[in-house]
């Protein structure tokens, strides 16, 4: 999949942007706070309706503005897709090839984008919710069945938890929510287990390449083992749930265990190891999407040069398949500076404006 063109208006600090990256590697050069990350963020938002930096669309609107508009043209093996995202004063609208979507979540799965950003170290250092969000986002893009199950699960869980917050909880009422929670939850567990098995193998390979032989392991750590009867489990944990006033068991408690050379990456990994591990999860996902969809997503690397040492950068660009369209930001403004060993299309970002160099 290739990004042909990005146009956006009113997004963060960006001036009106019209950006056509190269087929292979593209550098977005610019000093800090000129808008490089915002360009990547706008692409991610158009493709997923989510930003990696905020959950509030208001934050994405430029100063003095009241909304933004993003248009992204992509070319895949089998079809070209034009995405349009529009937000103005709380009203959100997405279009795919000119057709307005009924539900914003329907945007997922049309265009596949992978972003690695400095925030991603939270995948290693942060709490379980960060890693669950990662699984949920990637699987929702790969499988509409997963996305449906996730939405059903969250809805039923909110209702069940609300019941548990009430002063007197009737067991009968509580159990009314269990079957649909169990049905959706089992789907999540099955798909997460299969995804992690594949991802782990790919992440291991990426990490071995980047770190010169070290072993990274990413293992699914389900709260409830795949195949266990969730309906039964909810019934058994009902007393505890009532005492704790929340649904204590289920896939909303899942996690991914990351270990480097057999040690927990979160507590024992050095900063460099943690950053590399986070990057390798994204790289593994890149390969996994290629396996499942038959083509590579667009890869966007934000500040990867300041995150990794020179040797790892060299190995990284040996690892990334030349077929992958890759957009990389850097604060190095000298057009001659290029540690990747590859030809790059280059742009300079200054005060929210982008121009080819």
């Amino acid at each position, binding site marked *: 999949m290739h990004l042909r063109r990005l146009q956006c208006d009113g997004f963060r600090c960006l001036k009106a942007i019209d950006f056509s990256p190269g087929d292979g590697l593209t550098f977005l050069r610019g000093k800090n706070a000129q808008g490089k990350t915002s360009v990547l963020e706008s692409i991610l938002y158009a493709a997923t309706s989510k930003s990696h930096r905020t959950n509030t669309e208001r934050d994405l609107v430029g100063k003095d503005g009241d909304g933004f508009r993003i248009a992204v043209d992509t070319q895949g093996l089998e079809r070209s897709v034009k995405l349009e995202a529009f937000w103005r004063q709380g009203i959100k609208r997405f279009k795919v090839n000119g057709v307005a979507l009924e539900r914003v979540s329907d945007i997922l799965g049309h265009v596949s984008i992978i972003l690695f950003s400095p925030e991603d170290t939270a995948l290693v250092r942060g709490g379980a919710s960060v890693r669950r969000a990662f699984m949920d986002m990637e699987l929702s893009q790969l499988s*509409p*069945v997963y996305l*449906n199950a996730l939405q*059903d699960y969250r*809805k*039923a869980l*909110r*209702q*069940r938890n*609300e*019941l548990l917050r*009430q002063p007197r909880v*009737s067991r*009968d*009422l509580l*159990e*009314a*929510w*269990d*079957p*649909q929670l169990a049905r959706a939850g089992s789907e999540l567990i099955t798909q997460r287990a299969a995804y992690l098995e594949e991802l782990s193998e790919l992440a291991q390979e990426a990490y071995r390449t980047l770190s010169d032989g070290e072993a990274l392991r990413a293992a699914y750590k389900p709260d409830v083992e795949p195949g266990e009867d969730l309906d039964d489990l909810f019934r058994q944990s009902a007393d505890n749930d009532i005492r704790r006033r929340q649904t204590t068991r289920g896939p909303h408690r899942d996690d991914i265990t990351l270990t480097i050379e057999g040690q927990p990456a979160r507590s024992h990994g050095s900063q460099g190891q943690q950053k590399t591990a986070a990057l390798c999860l994204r790289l593994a996902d890149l390969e996994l999407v290629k396996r499942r969809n038959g083509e590579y997503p667009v890869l966007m690397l934000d500040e990867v040069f300041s995150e990794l040492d020179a040797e790892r950068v060299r190995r990284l660009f040996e690892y990334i398949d030349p077929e992958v369209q890759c957009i990389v930001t850097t604060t190095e403004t000298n057009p001659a500076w290029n540690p990747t060993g590859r030809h790059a299309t280059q742009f300079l970002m200054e005060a929210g404006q982008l121009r080819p160099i």
Partner: protein
Amino acid sequence: MVLDAPSVQRLVEAFRRLPGIGKRTAERLALHVLTAPADEAVLLSESVKEARAAITTCSRCGNLTDINPCAICSDDRRDAKTLCIVERPAGAMAIEKGGTYKGRYHVLHGVLNPLEGIGPSELRLDRLYKRIQDEGVREVIVATNATAEGEATAMYLSGQLDGDDVKVTRIAHGVPMGGGLEFADDATLTHALQGRRSV
């Protein structure tokens, strides 16, 4: 501007409270009422008032009716042993249009929704339990909507009712009749596949 006049604002707001009516449409409707011949506006308001006064909810099943008990509840040819539970009067009307259902109805006027503070007592289920006993109901068909809340309500009712002499069933969900598979959405198809049966 005329739209700012308090009486007109009240009218616009009244229209806006109707289902499916946004601000624009509400203003259009209000302007229509104000510019149409005066007797048309009077006819509208009188009709609303009269219909509202003439129609009540049936004391037995909770459906909308102009006589009490309603025509279905007082029709001896209807099968009193079968009760179809729906969320709203619209659900009962939809099934009546189908023309094949011969039992009676019970309208809940809602479904379980903890987040909106709706529990069993808001659905006046005591009335339902009493009816089942008094009228000797043998089968309860739960026809609440296929939403999370509708499903939970169906589960709850089956837990409360199933057993002593009463069979609780749930209407099937799946691909619409006469509709191509390609027009069904992912969720519907998933449910249709899960609910498959041998032929």
